[in-house]
Each structure stands twice: as structure tokens, then as C-alpha cells.
């Protein structure tokens, strides 16, 4: 979830009046926002809707709250539509056919009319970061740059460039380096270089006189790309994998600039081939389609009681224009939103505008029978028997290290399920057996009065070629006793009582297993099939866990026992 810093001064100015923190917290839910603390000039806010990047900036949040609380409406005159492109006064952005296929889209526009101050510059950079890290998935799907447009000779060109043959001075560097060197020699290059490393041609943004704007998605140039306080003409460029995403990001930025008092100047983006919106797109560009929410759908989701007129009023509070028709309500999504996928998205905005706490709560009327799963029913039986036999119930985590689950247990680990991207080697393996969990527990409990008798009913997971995922999750019970008399006789006695109360016949079949002492280990057979294993724990295993009490362990597959 993105967390943003809302600049109090700018927010106050945009919202139009002073609002207390309590009052803010009261209305935050309409933006799925949560107050997360205060720090100097900033209010920290967490935004829960990953589909509403328009809310991740001070102007965007102020816009939503103003609509909701004060009914303020916003209209922007700088949006082109497929049928009505605005005049760009010669500002053109050419997408060259040579640009990398994996990052085919780039769009841009200009703003002017106001000098950038400290607060605004920080706000823009913060927002850019949020867009990069979250909506842009750490610049993988979206990245953007801000440039000093008074230094640009239009048209701007987005192309693919040979990493070895092209060079420029990246931001905060005074000397030129090749595109390839930028990846190795700059901080941003090291952080994001993996996104383009190995590409034959790197994404490259230049102007018509050959000045470098940036090497997306890595870094701006130190000249045209070094935006400063006092600048009043800015070119905004957004590039990425998907056209609608880059257009949406451009629209959000444009609305924010407009709200902050800038004049937005459209720019014509010319693609080398047809896109879903044609070959030429004038940006900012309104591409949303109206969305009908039929009355039946509205009532199916929200229940009856909200008239279509009321629904339209609710949508208005959310900043969404709409029209009431015979069939239902038609919503016209704002330029900065792309989250109206279906009727349910319209219904949700109606519900929020109506106020969730204003709905009548109704109980479910269908009769249904509740029941525990057969596995849970059986586990409860097992738990009661074992507690009666003097064993305390434990519950353990399912992830641990290679050492604990495999090395210490002297097993091969070939059937173990491992995590590829483990954050920490302590959580690398999914447990193939409950026994190591029990032994680890014992190793942490030397202070507890002996004897120690513990068990757990839980899941284990191993590889299994016969399943779709190639793994199998079992319901198991593991039993461990550590005491001066934890020998095979007592072990089998415990099993015998356990099976007696489950009313199950069993046989023991001697076997060799490195976890147990040879000649003191057996498979537990139920109806001719192996249902588990038991034995005196191998002293080497005990030593590996730092245990100095004799121990026996039993592990049974409860799915098998239930059959």
C-alpha cells in the first residue's frame, strides 16, 4: 500500500479551508485513506486502493476530499479526445520505430505559467517516486521524467540507442559516459539497470538538436533533465509497457499540475504504427468509456432502496459525472481514473458516496448447516487422546532452515519443497516432517521440568510427481518424548494406546531410517499400508539439536489413519 506525505500548506490551499486532523480522519475513508501520523509540514497518509494512483499525491487527495465533502466539481479543458485533438502549437513527440519492443510506449506534455517552488518540486518528485515504485512496479511497467522544456528543441524523440556508442552526462555527474557505463557507474544505474541490461538497444530520449533528455527508465541527463526550483516550463514524459497505463499516468500528472496553478500545454505524440487510439495521440488524452450500471446490477449488489437519482448524487460526491437512464445509471469516469471496469465499480462508488454506515444491515436468511472439515474432526480426536496420554500440544511454524529440516535430521532432503526466493536462509524449506519441529522445541526447553512429552497435529509438505503442483500437503501428527525412560518399549506403548483409542489395528515392520537408531525403528502399518514411522531418535540427531535426553518420536499420516 502506498504511503504518502501530504504537504499541509499545499493541501490547505487546494482544499480551500482549514480542516482539523479529526475532521480529515473522518472523511479519509472516501478515498480509502488512513491517517498514519504527522511530521512537521506533512501528514502521513496510507492509501489502500492500488487502482487509484490519482490519490497518491497532495492535489489528488485534496481533489477527492473536496468533491466528497464540499461537492466541488472539477473540469479540465486541456484533454483531447480521439475525435477532438487540441492544438499543440508545434509541440511534437516522435516515437521512433527503433525503440525497444519491451518498452514501446512513451507520451508527453508541457506545463508552464508558474515558477516551481521548493514545496512543489518536492511534491512532484515524491509523487513521481510513488508512481515509479508502486504503480510502475519499481519502474518495470512505468517510468517518468520531468524536463526543463525551455531548453528543448521540439520535437522530442524516443528511440532505441546503441549502449556502447551513445553517451551523455547523467544527473548529478559532470562528465559524459556511455549508456552502458551509466548502468555500472551510477547509483540509479545499479538499482534499476537490471530492467534493461542485455537489451541490444537502450531506451533513449533526445531532442531534435541531439540533446539528451534521459535514458528511461534509469536516469535523466544532467542538463535538460535537471529540474530546479525557479523553473517555470516543464516537459513531462511517461514511458512504459502498456499504452493506457502511460496515458493514465500522464493524465493524473496533468490534472495535478492544473490544480497547482500551472497551465497545461498539450503535445502531439506520433507513433511509428497504429495504436488502439490511432497513430497520433494528443496528450493529455481522455480515453475512458462511459460505463453503464444497470439498475438490476445496482440492486443486486447494494440491495434495494437507492434510487437512480440518489445514485447519481452519490457518484457526484465521488467526483464522477453521470446520467440517469431508463436502464440504469451511466457513469463517465474522470480523466484521472481508469478503475471503472464493470458495473460493480460504479456500484462501489455509489456505496461510498452513500456512506457504508448508512446502509441497513440485514441478516442472511438462507439456512445452511455448519460443520468442521473431516480432517479437523479427526485432529480433535487425536488431540484429546494424546493430551489424555500425557502429551502437551504444540503449534509450530512451517518454514525453517535446510539445517533444521534436512541436515540435522540426517535425511537426504530430496523430497523437500524449497523456496526459491527465500528472504532469509532461516525460512528456506517447507517442513517435510513434524519431527524436526518437535526436536527444535525440545532443544529450546532444557529448563522445563522433565519428562517432556509433546505433540503437534499439523501439515507437512513434500514433492510428489502425481499431483498437479508436483507437491503434496499431508495432515500429520508428530509425537515426541524426551525423558530418562524414552525407549522403544515406551514408544510402542504410547502408539499402542493411541491406536487402541482410535480403534485401529496396526502392525510394526522393522525398517532403517537415519533419523532413528538402527534396530529400534519401525514403520507403522495400517491395513497393509505405511501410515507412519516410530523409533528411538538417533543420538547423532539429538546431538545436532543439542539434546541430551533420550528421545523417541512417532509420526503418523492422519489422512491414512482416517481412511
Amino acid at each position, binding site marked *: 500500500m502506498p504511503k504518502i506525505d501530504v504537504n499541509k500548506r499545499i493541501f490547505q490551499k487546494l482544499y480551500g479551508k482549514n480542516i482539523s486532523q479529526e475532521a480529515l480522519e473522518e472523511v479519509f475513508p472516501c478515498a480509502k485513506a488512513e491517517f498514519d501520523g504527522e511530521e512537521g509540514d506533512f501528514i502521513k497518509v496510507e492509501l489502500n486502493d*492500488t487502482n487509484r494512483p490519482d490519490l497518491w499525491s497532495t492535489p489528488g487527495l485534496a481533489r477527492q476530499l473536496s468533491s466528497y465533502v464540499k461537492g466541488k466539481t472539477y473540469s479540465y479543458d486541456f484533454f483531447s479526445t480521439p475525435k477532438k485533438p487540441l492544438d499543440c502549437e508545434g509541440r511534437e513527440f516522435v516515437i521512433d520505430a527503433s525503440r525497444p519492443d519491451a518498452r514501446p510506449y512513451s507520451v508527453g506534455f508541457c506545463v508552464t505559467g508558474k515558477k516551481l517552488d521548493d514545496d512543489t518540486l518536492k511534491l512532484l518528485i515524491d509523487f513521481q517516486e510513488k508512481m515509479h515504485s508502486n504503480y510502475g512496479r519499481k519502474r518495470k511497467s512505468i517510468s517518468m521524467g520531468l524536463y526543463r522544456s525551455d531548453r528543448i528543441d521540439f520535437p522530442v524523440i524516443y528511440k532505441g540507442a546503441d549502449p556502447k556508442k551513445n553517451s551523455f552526462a547523467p544527473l548529478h555527474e559532470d562528465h559524459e559516459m556511455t549508456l552502458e557505463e551509466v548502468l555500472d557507474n551510477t547509483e540509479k544505474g545499479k538499482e534499476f539497470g537490471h530492467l534493461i541490461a542485455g537489451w541490444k538497444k537502450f531506451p533513449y530520449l533526445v531532442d531534435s538538436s541531439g540533446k539528451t533528455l534521459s535514458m528511461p527508465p534509469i536516469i535523466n541527463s544532467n542538463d535538460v533533465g535537471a529540474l530546479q526550483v525557479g523553473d517555470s516550463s516543464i516537459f513531462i514524459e511517461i514511458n512504459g509497457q502498456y499504452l493506457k497505463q502511460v496515458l493514465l499516468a500522464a493524465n493524473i500528472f496533468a490534472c495535478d499540475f492544473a490544480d497547482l496553478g500551472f497551465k497545461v500545454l498539450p503535445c502531439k505524440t506520433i507513433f511509428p504504427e497504429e495504436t488502439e487510439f490511432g497513430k497520433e495521440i494528443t496528450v493529455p488524452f481522455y480515453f475512458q468509456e462511459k460505463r453503464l450500471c444497470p439498475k438490476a446490477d445496482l440492486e443486486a449488489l447494494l440491495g434495494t432502496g437507492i434510487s437512480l437519482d440518489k445514485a447519481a448524487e452519490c457518484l457526484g460526491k465521488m467526483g464522477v459525472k453521470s446520467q440517469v437512464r431508463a436502464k440504469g445509471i451511466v457513469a463517465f469516469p474522470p480523466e484521472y481514473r481508469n478503475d471503472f*471496469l464493470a458495473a*460493480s465499480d460504479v456500484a462501489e462508488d455509489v456505496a461510498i458516496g452513500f456512506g457504508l454506515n448508512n446502509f441497513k*444491515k*440485514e441478516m442472511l436468511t438462507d439456512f445452511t448447516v455448519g460443520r468442521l472439515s473431516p480432517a479437523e474432526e479427526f485432529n*480433535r480426536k487425536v488431540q484429546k487422546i494424546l493430551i489424555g496420554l500425557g502429551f502437551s500440544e504444540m503449534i509450530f511454524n512451517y518454514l525453517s532452515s535446510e539445517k533444521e529440516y534436512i541436515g540435522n535430521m540426517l535425511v537426504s532432503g530430496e523430497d523437500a519443497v524449497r523456496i526459491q526466493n527465500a528472504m532469509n536462509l532461516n525460512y528456506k524449506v517447507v517442513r517435510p516432517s513434524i519431527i524436526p519441529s518437535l526436536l527444535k522445541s525440545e532443544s529450546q526447553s532444557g529448563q522445563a521440568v522433565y519428562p517432556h512429552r509433546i505433540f503437534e497435529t499439523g501439515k507437512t509438505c513434500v514433492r510428489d510427481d502425481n499431483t498437479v503442483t508436483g507437491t503434496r*500437503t499431508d495432515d500429520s501428527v508428530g509425537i515426541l518424548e524426551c525423558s530418562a525412560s524414552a525407549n522403544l518399549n515406551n514408544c510402542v506403548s504410547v502408539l499402542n494406546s493411541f491406536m487402541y483409542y482410535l480403534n485401529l489395528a496396526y502392525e510394526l515392520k522393522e525398517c532403517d531410517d537415519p533419523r532413528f537408531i538402527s534396530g529400534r525403528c519401525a514403520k507403522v502399518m495400517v491395513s497393509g499400508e505405511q501410515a507412519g514411522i516410530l523409533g528411538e531418535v538417533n543420538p547423532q540427531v539429538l546431538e545436532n539439536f543439542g539434546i541430551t535426553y533420550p528421545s523417541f518420536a512417532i509420526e503418523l499420516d492422519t489422512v491414512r489413519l482416517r481412511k
Partner: protein
Amino acid sequence: MIDVRNLHPLEIRLLLGFKEGEKFDNEEIEKRCSFNPGHANQAVSWTLSKNLISKVSSETIVSYELSDIGRDALVKGMIARRIISLVAKAGVSIADLPKLLEEDQKSIGSDFALLKKAGILSVTPDKKIELNENHEIPRYVVVVESLLKRGAEGPVMDLDLSEEERAEMQKVSKKRGSDAFFRTIERDHSVYCLTDEGVAAGIELKKEHITGDEIGEVTKDLLESGDWHGKRFRAYDVEHVPVSKLLVARENPYSAFIRSIKDKLVAMGFEEFDGGLVENEFWNGDALFMPQFHPARDIHDVYYIENPSHSKKIDEPYLTNVANVHENGKGANSKGWEYPFDRQFSLRNLLRSQGTVLSAHQLTKAKVPSRYFGVVRCFRYDQVDATHGSDFYQTEGIVLGDDVNLKNLLGLLEMFAKEIAGAKEIKYVPGYFPFTEPSVEVHIKHPVLGWFELGGSGIFRKEVTAPLGIKCPVLAWGLGIDRMALMNLGLNDIRELFTGNIENVRLRRG
């Protein structure tokens, strides 16, 4: 006034054994009450500590016990006497003495010197020993010999010794060590009498007909023989019975908490579901209409399985239905996410990161109407700390019904808040989940924890239900129970819920 019923039989018999003003010592107690010395000691020590008797006087009695070498000297005779007898028979040289006496030079030396000094012996120039005329046995020899003889009959009391005897005794007796004829024993001898409280207790005992012969332990023999008939049972100090810690087997408090949650959900008409730990991207994300480019589907959010890295297949028609709904919303009256769906990506194996996966699986086999729930283990790529575990439980469920809507969802959340969390105040705020629209978070004011988010919920998007073959609305909900679990168990670190410490489990209350 002491409750005489709580007195021990030894105390009772002592108190009843003596009269007011009478003086007595341990020996007298043993005789009068038929106690052995141990019992007498216990009776004295207990009644003293309760101020029922007091010490009238106390003195130290010194006595001397014959040691092993004293006994030896008595049999063989003292060295001095043996030297005289030997010399009297024949001329003996000094060098021969140890051999003839079968003693070492050291033990002979001092006696020999004393005899020489007393003029009983003399040594010739050629080192022969001669017995002088008119010699007498030295006085100390006579005295010590008589003491040895007395010692052989029993401890010699210091009180019985003459001045001369006492002086000699002190030379041949030691408190410690075994190299003297006697061991000096010092013993305290005290004389007691009943205090006023002791006298009063005796009177009370008689009044209550307590004799000290009351039955202590009720034994099997006693019951079989019927000997208890007509007898009284000794009373305990019931309010202060000393206790010992019992070693018991316990159910795990966290597991028990989870079971209680399951029981409550079953009581509300929910049927439990469960499933495997390993899922694939399809069920963990795609089927829940999370776009494949969703930020929460990053390598830094879920744990991928190393091997096998991919599932073999995704069942149809689900794969195609879900792919379509992502790409263009087909079948769900939606525009979808508008991106090319990657079917290979869907096969990627991972550890279940959210319980909702099981709701998605359940939809493929759900009845209408129905209610399902699961309390299931989930895994996230998180730094493990006091609020994040490597794996943790999520409580999730769904409600299917032809007419279920937002009002029912709010009613259901209200029921959870009251029945499961004991909440008095509840509020609902809009939430966001990729798979539900509308989405609602329920916040409650807990009696102890204050306001917190109890859970997230919503109505499954058609983009989720339609591809899995469900035509009716589906309410989906998830509850965060761990904060309540921590509070119930008096913990503030989520890792403690899975403690390996056996003592923590055996001793934890609640």
C-alpha cells in the same frame, strides 16, 4: 488462640503429657510420651516455635567417648607401661624398642621421654635401657588407665571427673580427629516448661477430646479393616495446605483459540474448507482477478517454489475463462484489465499467500446457498518481526446465495464483530481488494484493544465468480484474529504464538 485441631499428634501428646509449672527435658519427654529421640526433638522444636513451651534453662553437657585408638590402648596397655614391662625382663637397646613394641618411633618417643624424666629409666652409654631401682609407675599412667577402663563401659561424664582426672582427660581427648584416646562430646541440655498458651492449649485439647491418636492418612488398609470406626480424623490447616506444582499435559492455548474461532463459525452455519500449502499463480492471483502486473504479485511479495517451479497444468475451462476475463472481461460484463494474459506465468508454483485462494478453489465445487470458511496457514515475503511471522493464519470465508448483497455483508460483519470479537461499537469503511467490489473493512472498538481493523470483505467481482462457473453473488470476508489471540494469551509478539518453549505451553493460562 491457636486452633488445637491443627496441632500435630506429637505436639498434642507433649502438651497433654505435662502439667502447668512442671519442668522437663528431652529425656523426660521421650519417657513420658513414648517418643523416640527424633520425635521428641520435633515435638520440642514445633511447640517452641508456636510458643507453647519455653526454655527454662540450658547448659552444655560435656562427655568423653572412647576412640578406636583408646580401645586399642586398653587392650594392649599404654606405651609407658609396656616399655617398663619390657625393660624389666631384659636389657633392651633404644634402637630395638620400636621393633619389640611393634610401634613406630613417634608414638614411643614422648612416653619414653616422660619415663626418663621421671627417673624411672636411664640409658647407659652403650644405649641400653635400664630400669632404676624403686621405680613407681607414673601417676598419669595410672589415671589414664583408669579413665580408659571407665570409657569402655560408656561415655565418661565430665561432671563425674575429679580435678586430676579432668586434667589428664583433656590431654587425651579431642573434639575432632581420631588420634586421641577419647572424643570430647558437647551436648546442649535444655529444660522446658509449658507456657500459658501451652497450658491453655492442653485444656482446649482435653475439652475437644483430642488425644493425638486421631487418624492421619486414610489408607486402603484402614478402610478394609474398618479400624476407623469410632475414631477421629486429624484436621488439616485447611486454609494453608502446602501445595506442590503438578506436571500436566495441556492443549496449546493458541491452537485452542483457533478451535474456538472455528466453533463459532460452525455455529453460524459455515462449513470448513482446507487445502494444500503449495499453490500456483493461477489460483493465488489470476483466479482472484489480480492482474499479473499487480504490485502484490512481485517476487518480493510471495515465496516461489524452487522445485518443481511450475505446475503441470491448470484445469479447463478455468484457465481460458480467467485468461479471457483478464484480457477483455469476457463473460463478466467487464472491460477486464486489458493486457495480454501470460499462461506460462500462471503455472508458477508458490506458497499460498492469502486464504482467499481456498475460497476460489471452493467456488469450483460450491453449493447454493452455502457458507464456507477456513482458518489456514499463509506465507508472505516479509521480514520476520514482532508483527510479521514467516507463516501465519488467515481466517477467510464466503457466502453464496441468490439474493445476498451489501446489506447482508454488513449484517454478517456485525455478527462477526459481536460474536467473535465481543465488540460493542462497529464502523464500516471502504476497502480495496482486487477481487471484491464493493469492498468493506470492518473496524471495531474492542473492550481492551480500542479501535482496530477486524477484517476485510466485499462482494466477489463477477470477474472472479463467472470464470469459475458461479452465477449468484458471493460475499467474501477475512478476519484478522491474531491481535485477539495475542490479547487472549497475554502476548505482544506474534512469534510467541508459535513458541517452542514447552514450559510456556504447560504453564500458560487462559
